[in-house]
């Protein structure tokens, strides 16, 4: 019990430190504060004459998701590399609480602060139109939102471990942003993509998280949503397994080759 409390304490302290460190970086401030504003303006102007019902919700949701993903790509994914260049990676790697716990805390901190992008998108949309957004089932939306956030935390963890194996993090960070927004249907439904791309999209957990979020805004199709939750659950479990395997493989490789700071 004490150990659990200690672990939670480490995660909380890492989250706080990470939020402060992230906010100090200009690129993160761009992702968090400016990106949601420009994305909201862009999507608002694009969807202005679309005839979409409740289009403001889609604009805010789309811009918020893009902001959240941008923060994940340019912070959560790149944090290990930043630690490497600062020379602190070996220190956190051998910390008594465990490297996995610290990385989890960093990602949770980043994700928590990144949620601000939804608020900024909403504020921008409100300033643009003076209209509020209709969410017919708030409790369902809240649950869907928390599910989506959990999914993004797990995805970030996998991406962070994956990128730890390479020094070309900057390249991969940039390459991850738009393709995921396209494949996971952040802004438009994936059904407009060619069939073979839809198969790839369906393999990605964020696609189902986004579907659940969009379903929860105005529709009430419990049967469909249950299927989405089940698929998302399975994909998240697979991602957790991938994260564990990646971590063990990376750990073995680091200890065998002693290349933590150079690989």
């Amino acid at each position, binding site marked *: 019990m004490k150990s659990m409390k200690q672990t939670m304490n480490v995660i909380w302290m890492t989250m706080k430190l990470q939020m402060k460190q992230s906010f100090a970086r200009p*690129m993160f401030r761009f992702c968090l504060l400016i990106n949601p504003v420009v994305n909201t303006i862009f999507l608002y102007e694009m969807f202005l004459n679309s005839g979409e019902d409740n289009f403001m919700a889609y604009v805010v949701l789309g811009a918020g998701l893009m902001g959240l993903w941008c923060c994940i790509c340019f912070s959560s994914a790149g944090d290990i590399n930043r630690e490497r260049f600062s020379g602190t990676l070996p220190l956190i790697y051998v910390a008594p609480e465990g490297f996995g716990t610290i990385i989890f805390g960093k990602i949770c901190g980043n994700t928590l602060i990144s949620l601000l992008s939804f608020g900024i998108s909403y504020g921008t949309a409100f300033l643009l139109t003076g209209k509020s957004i209709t969410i017919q089932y708030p409790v369902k939306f809240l649950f869907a939102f928390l599910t989506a956030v959990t999914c993004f935390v797990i995805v970030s963890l996998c991406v962070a471990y994956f990128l730890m194996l390479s020094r070309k993090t900057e390249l991969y960070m940039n390459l991850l942003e738009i393709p995921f927004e396209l494949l996971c249907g952040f802004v438009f439904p994936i059904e407009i993509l060619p069939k073979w791309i839809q198969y790839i999209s369906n393999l990605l957990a964020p696609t189902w998280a986004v579907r659940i979020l969009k379903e929860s805004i105005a529709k009430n199709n419990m049967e469909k949503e249950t299927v989405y939750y089940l698929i998302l659950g399975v994909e998240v479990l697979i991602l957790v397994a991938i994260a564990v395997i990646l971590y063990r493989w990376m750990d073995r490789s680091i200890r065998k080759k002693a290349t933590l700071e150079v690989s």
Partner: protein
Amino acid sequence: MKRFLKQSWLDFKGQRAAFSLEEFALMETMYPFVTMVFYCLVAGYAFRTTNLSRWVVGNAFLLCTNTCVFSLGSCFMGERYYGRIRSIITAPISKLEVILEKGFFPCMICIITTFVGFGAGSIVFHVNWSGVNIGLFLVILLIGMASAAGFGLFLATLGLISNQMHLILNLVANLLVIFCGANFPISQLPAAGQLISKLLPLTRSIEASQLLLEGKIAFEQVLSLLLGELGVGAVYVILAFCVVKSAERVAIRKGTLELF
């Protein structure tokens, strides 16, 4: 000229040395293309249309922002980080020449990327080029790129007076997406937004190429848009010159070039 090319090649090799050929191709060609596809799909869904010609053309123009904004704009960031900026400031050559050296090969890559973007986008989204004056279109494209390069030059000089270049460059790239008329008509924007779009490069080139594609353009109109585009590019080059001179003076007087 020999020194110019040698320096350009050295800088280009230095920037790209860490990447394999596949990674380089992915970054310079595939990624901009996927970005263009993304914006075209958003447009197709939002405007409920399958005729995406105007968006292919508009977003293909924006492909060169990757080079003009990011490659040119970030050229002093690395120099500051690696401690070479003092040598550059005190060297008896024009700082604009230094920026051009750094931008020369990325610009060549940018031209290839833009053409690949046009080609691939035209195939994927079935753009109909029949009846379009290709020669005139190429002239519009080259003038648009020249103007964007002038803008990139100006952004690069901001690297001498600010350490927030990541933020500035990403903001500018996003502003270009919104205000250049590549994705939605500028007339949709409020008056202030329309004024901003007039001050940015590429707006007039994109308008001219979209009109050309729709077969609605007169010679006088294209001439006026292209002259406007060249004028905007020239103003940014002059601004870049002024900022460089002022940054040099401030750097020498205060000695804080590497400190902020």
